[in-house]
């Protein structure tokens, strides 16, 4: 801890910062869940006008730490202090009143309410003693637009895409006065444009003189905007460093405690021309139409596009998870996608982008979650074989490097990145021949990303078809053999080889104003 605070001072000077006191100090914070220690003796000074990044591996305790700072949980030991006075936040409002707001890693919105209602929940605007829906809707639309989100304020949160939900959540946090804004992986579900816009907003917050705590596994973002970087490892503070001069590799090393190999695997030669999935004229009403594409055995096929381009919906349509029609040929056999589960039974595995809402039973233990989509394999005679399930869990924990403090936890108690890994393990347990991964590394730390990429490549080498939907262009470019780009519910192009550049993809993914306008007619 002495090391940490010394570094803290150094970094102050390095950033050439003003000398006004910290907005918030964490002093020796610890957090236990029962016998499990998640965070121990963490010290941190948060300075105004600075963007302070917190990095660490999945399960390092970042989110837990942030929850303590924002009053969503109370520390087992340690105190917070503001301007030299010790404070206790036993509820989020207390922190909010002190100007501390948190944008959660997991989305926390009431699905049955509208966007505007969620935005203003608990602090509705009033007009003559009545809730002023009109103003709230207007302001909501404005605030969202600033973030580049175009959902209607009247839409039910249930009906909007995950990325939009994240933006709603951010807009909600920024609605009130704040001295410190904590972003816990805000960009995990966002695509290029939105990310840019958000980073711009974060910089603006900094300019206004507020403090920002920023958590991300996208180290390039950290590098771009952070003034200083604190590293958590295994619940302990490794140190705080000036961001300047810290390369991504340095950060990775500090997080993991060792050197890392290259992030992306070396590309193989494209394996085969044997088609495994042919989609002809797929229509997912309201989301996508005229979808034609073919994926091949042993191929890694990427799907790029902006939020709302309809990538998720295309595959949910194919999987029979939402109404769709069109012809789908799977390994040479036509399947009827109006028939629920036809695609699943035909051997397509689909990993949802919404791990919390659609992926995992958060109140359930790990093993039942892991085996839920492949029950038949853990079943003999009439009975579920619990020992086999446990063995599978132990294996998954090893294979996918799921970090947990105890096997007894519920899925909802895993850290975000580890939930993602559990979900990946769950889908692969169905042994699909075609695997569709919607946002494979959402919330995954850099060391594990490399692992997952290698993993995807191994699957392809085994002759499986891997379809990767991702909002990180870098990642698609890094691992895919071929990338299809979608825009507004249609496939607008394909890039391969040389042409696989961010520029090329962005061009296909974004529409110019005139075509957009004509489409709205």
């Amino acid at each position, binding site marked *: 801890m002495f090391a940490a605070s010394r570094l803290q001072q150094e970094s102050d000077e390095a950033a050439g910062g003003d000398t006004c006191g910290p907005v918030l100090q964490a002093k020796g914070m610890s957090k236990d869940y029962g016998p499990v220690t998640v965070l121990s003796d963490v010290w941190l000074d948060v300075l105004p006008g600075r963007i302070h990044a917190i990095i660490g591996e999945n399960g390092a305790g970042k989110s837990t730490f942030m929850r303590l700072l924002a009053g*969503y949980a109370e520390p087992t030991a340690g105190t917070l202090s503001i301007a030299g006075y010790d404070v206790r936040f036993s*509820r*989020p*409002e207390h922190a*909010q009143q002190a100007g501390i707001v948190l944008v959660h890693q997991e989305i*926390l*919105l*009431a*699905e*049955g*309410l509208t966007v505007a*209602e*969620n935005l*203003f*929940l*608990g*602090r*509705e605007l*009033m007009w003559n*003693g*009545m*809730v002023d829906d009109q103003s709230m809707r207007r302001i909501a*639309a404005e605030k969202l*637009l600033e973030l580049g989100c*175009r*959902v*209607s*304020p*009247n*839409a*039910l949160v249930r009906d909007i895409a995950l990325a939009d939900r994240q933006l709603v959540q951010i807009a909600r946090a920024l609605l009130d006065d704040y001295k410190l804004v904590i972003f816990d992986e805000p960009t995990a579900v966002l695509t290029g444009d939105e990310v840019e816009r958000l980073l711009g907003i974060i910089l603006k917050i900094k300019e206004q003189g507020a403090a920002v705590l920023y958590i991300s596994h996208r180290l390039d973002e950290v590098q771009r905007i952070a003034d200083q970087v604190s590293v958590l490892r295994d619940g302990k503070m490794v140190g705080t460093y000036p961001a300047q001069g810290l390369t991504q590799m340095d950060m990775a090393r500090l997080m993991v405690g060792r050197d890392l190999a290259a992030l992306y695997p070396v590309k193989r030669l494209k394996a085969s021309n044997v088609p495994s999935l042919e989609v002809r004229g797929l229509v997912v009403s309201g989301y996508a139409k005229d979808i034609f594409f073919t994926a091949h055995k042993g191929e890694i096929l990427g799907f790029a596009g902006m939020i709302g381009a309809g990538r998720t919906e295309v595959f949910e349509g194919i999987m029979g998870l939402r109404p769709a029609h069109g012809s789908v040929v799977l390994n040479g056999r036509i399947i009827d996608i109006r028939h629920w589960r036809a695609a699943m039974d035909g051997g397509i595995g689909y990993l949802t982008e919404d791990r919390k809402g659609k992926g995992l039973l958060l109140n359930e233990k790990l093993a039942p979650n892991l085996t839920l989509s492949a029950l038949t394999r853990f079943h003999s005679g009439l009975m579920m074989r619990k020992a086999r399930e446990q063995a599978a869990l132990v294996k998954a924990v090893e294979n996918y490097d799921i970090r947990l403090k105890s096997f007894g936890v519920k899925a909802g108690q895993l850290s975000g990145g580890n939930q993602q890994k559990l979900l990946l393990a769950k889908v692969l347990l169905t042994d699909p021949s075609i695997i569709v991964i919607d946002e494979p590394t959402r919330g995954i730390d850099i060391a594990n990303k490399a692992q997952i990429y290698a993993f995807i490549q191994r699957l392809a080498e085994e002759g499986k078809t891997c379809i990767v939907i991702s909002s990180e262009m870098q990642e698609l470019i890094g691992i895919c053999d071929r990338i299809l780009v979608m825009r507004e519910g249609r496939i607008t192009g394909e890039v391969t080889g040389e042409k696989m550049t961010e520029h090329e993809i962005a061009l296909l993914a974004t529409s110019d*104003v005139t075509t*957009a*306008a004509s489409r*709205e007619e």
Partner: protein
Amino acid sequence: MSVITGSAALRQERDWNIGWTDFGPFLALLALLVVGFLVNPDFLSATNLGNVITRSAFIAIIAVGATFVISSGGLDLSVGAMAAFITGITIMFMNSMAPEWGVWAIPAGMAVAVVVGTGCGLMNGLIVTVGRIEPFIATLGTMGIFRALITYMSDGGTIPIDRSLREAYRPVYFGTVGGIPLPILISIAVAAVASFILYKMKYGRKCAAVGANEDVARYSGISIVKTRTIAYAMQGACVAIAAICYVPRLGAATPTTGVLWELQVITAVVIGGTALRGGKGHVWGTVAGAVILELIANLMVLSDFVSEYLVAGVQGVIIIIAMLIQRFSK
């Protein structure tokens, strides 16, 4: 520029959607009216419709209260028994005051009813929220308690209202204003106030938030205990209002007053479009639901097709069909 047109277009679409959900119950109501007319043209006569809607007022008023409770994620099975209990207390109070206060005992009794009702609701709310007992069980328990109390108070018999008060009190059920029966006006007023609370006041938002997602509500600084307890208290007040209208109708409280009203009330709320698992409440839908239920019963009597033994069955079938129509209309 185009961005803005884009979101405007989106907005329209959504409004349209919301419209549909809200229309469901009214469509079902309409369908029922048409069927009713085909079965027996008398069905649409002013007297008949007047009677039926007036009668549905109790259930409607109580169900408006239940809309709060259910929307906030609760449930109240005790409303029928509570109605009987409040009716009993009210009548006993009025009777004891009548000699002294004369007709003024009536408004005083009404005030007592509202206070007692709110108190009963509060009790339900506290058991559910502070005691953290599943609402189904908690209110099943208090249902037994209220029922026992009215039985005890009445010695198992009836508690009739004093003759001297009858005539003065009668108009509350049988009176009309501008040709419209008072209970209808009262239930409209209750629904109007309720929809103001639910849609225009902060509390309404809290209610829906608590019902939709407790965690989100809590993190937004909304007290679940407070919100849900208030919902139960309002339910109690609504039961009291219903009881006030009920007294002049039969002039007595008995141990069987309000038996099974809870099922009708919940059915009205659900038919009206409020989900039993909580979330947004639909006050006017609830009112439509209550009218639908009463119309179905009325239709059964007016038609000659059904054996008297099978009436309950046909009602069941019609309710299911009404719900299917709603599903279908969405």
